[in-house]
């Protein structure tokens, strides 16, 4: 079997102290191969961002990995020391967040901010670093690299700042880029430009991208494989064609039905009633059962096993399991 660049196995993340702190992420498994564009979808408060932060060891205070492993190129990051993680962060694993302005230093010129990871990870002379920074500014398709190099963040537009963030994240040629809602704060036109850029960079640099978003349209246009997360669990995973073409889990169906598209004009949006429960009320059964229109008695008791629908398509739902894992809609 080919080795995956990133493999989360049975990962759990606990929030808060005490003997039995509630788990915000409950035994999830997720894989990303070299050069793959993988999406992680779900509503706010489902544990997507905690999952992302746990990979480079950036969980906030009071939140910790409670079990499982994070295998990255043969090492278990869950067991890695802070020092080991620091060596990986910014060079092998990088992140891009939603609001670029809050990650950029307003008092530092853009050029030196892009150069920072190179300096920290000891890459070459000043001239070499400068050359690589200018090359990177060109790679993220910013105009006039020399001018951008000397600009301050406030002199750039929102889309340009996010391009600078991508340059910082990719200048060390990481193997893994984690992008947590990187386009949510941008307007539609700029958003699609950044997504196209991300696609091109993924192709030209071969960086694996874990893309996190609640926006299914974005995930659909970008990712080849998708994981859908609900209340700390992965409820369905598959190729983008499987997830959007023949979704099996009721939650995935609800998410897709919530997104307005012009073809659906004049029809009410089906959406999903209710909302994501708080972490302490996740319960033992299928966490989606209280909001699910097709729940049965057993749904509330125990979390359903993973059913295999194809070599790449998996779902955790009793409805799917009772159909023998076969893809069929009986309505």
């Amino acid at each position, binding site marked *: 079997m080919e080795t995956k660049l990133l493999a989360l196995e049975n990962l759990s993340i606990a929030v808060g102290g005490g003997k039995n702190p509630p788990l915000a992420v409950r035994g999830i498994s997720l894989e990303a191969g070299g050069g793959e564009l993988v999406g992680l979808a779900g509503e706010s408060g489902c544990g997507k961002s905690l999952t992302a932060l746990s990979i480079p060891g950036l969980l906030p205070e009071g939140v910790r990995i409670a079990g499982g492993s994070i295998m990255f190129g043969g090492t278990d990051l869950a067991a890695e020391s802070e020092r080991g993680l620091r060596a990986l962060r910014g060079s092998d694993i990088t992140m891009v967040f939603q609001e670029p302005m809050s990650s950029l230093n307003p008092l530092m010129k853009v050029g030196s901010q892009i150069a920072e990871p190179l300096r920290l990870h000891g890459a070459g002379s000043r001239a070499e670093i400068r050359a690589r920074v200018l090359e990177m500014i060109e790679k993220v398709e910013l105009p006039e690299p020399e001018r951008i190099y000397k600009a301050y963040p406030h002199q750039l537009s*929102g889309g340009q700042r996010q391009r600078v963030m991508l340059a910082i994240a990719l200048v060390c040629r990481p193997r893994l880029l984690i992008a947590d809602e990187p386009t949510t704060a941008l307007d*539609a*036109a700029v958003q699609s430009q950044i997504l196209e850029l991300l696609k091109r960079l993924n192709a030209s640099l071969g960086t694996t991208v874990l893309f996190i978003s609640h926006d299914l349209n974005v995930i659909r246009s970008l990712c080849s494989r998708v994981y859908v997360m609900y209340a700390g669990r992965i409820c369905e995973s598959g190729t983008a064609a499987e997830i959007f073409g023949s979704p099996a889990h009721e939650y995935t169906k609800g998410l897709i039905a919530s997104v*307005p*598209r012009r073809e*659906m*004009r004049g029809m009410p*949006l089906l*959406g999903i009633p209710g*909302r994501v429960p708080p972490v302490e009320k996740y319960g033992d059964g299928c966490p989606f059962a209280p909001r699910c229109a097709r729940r049965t008695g057993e749904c509330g008791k125990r979390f359903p096993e993973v059913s295999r629908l194809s070599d790449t398509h998996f779902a955790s739902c009793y409805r799917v399991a009772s159909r023998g894992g076969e893809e069929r809609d009986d309505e």
Partner: protein
Amino acid sequence: MSNPVLELRNVTAGYTSRSLGIFGRKTTRRVLDGIDLTIKQGGIFGLVGGSGSGKTTLARAVLGFIEYGGEIFIDGRERSSGSRRDFARAVQSVFQDPASSMDPTKRVGFLLEEPLVIHRLGTKAERLRRVDEVLDFIGFDPAYKKRGISELSGGQRQRVAIGIALMLEPKLIVADEPVSSLDVSVAAQILNVLRDLRERLGLSLLFISHNLELVHYLCDEVAVLAEGKLAADG
């Protein structure tokens, strides 16, 4: 034929800024440059455009928050012929961030009743009946009257904001990015409420968004605002 609910004729608007210093030069930036637009009763008009294209400026002109050139007719009356208060019963608004426009110390019932109190409409009993009616419309149990705003989720707050806008029975609601900060599933609930406004109350809507798919889903007519001009779309 009845008057259009909203009609803009050759509307212009801009902002003046002064460069630094006492004798700084005044510069005017024209954001809206001759806008014509008509919304019939029960019509949903979608306005799209990038950041900084003037979408919100147009909304602010319609709502009477800024000065403008040209003419804006609301339900047949020129906007500048009356105060904001005079027009409050004809046009109301819903914005992106509902929490920032509500007093966090007040309860849902109070916030809903407030517009009626300000406009001295009805007796206490009539006002409370109207509050219950609107609560029902936005899908809340009457018990929610006693809830504080801080106890509600983002989607619930946005529904309360729509409820407040409905209290005075306006003809037109200006909704500026009302679902942009909400999760997809919650946004779907809000969009259904907005569709209901038209279906059940015959209300008109000026819906502003940067999301093209969404606008085409919801609206009868869509126009793109770019460089101060309006161009029809689809």
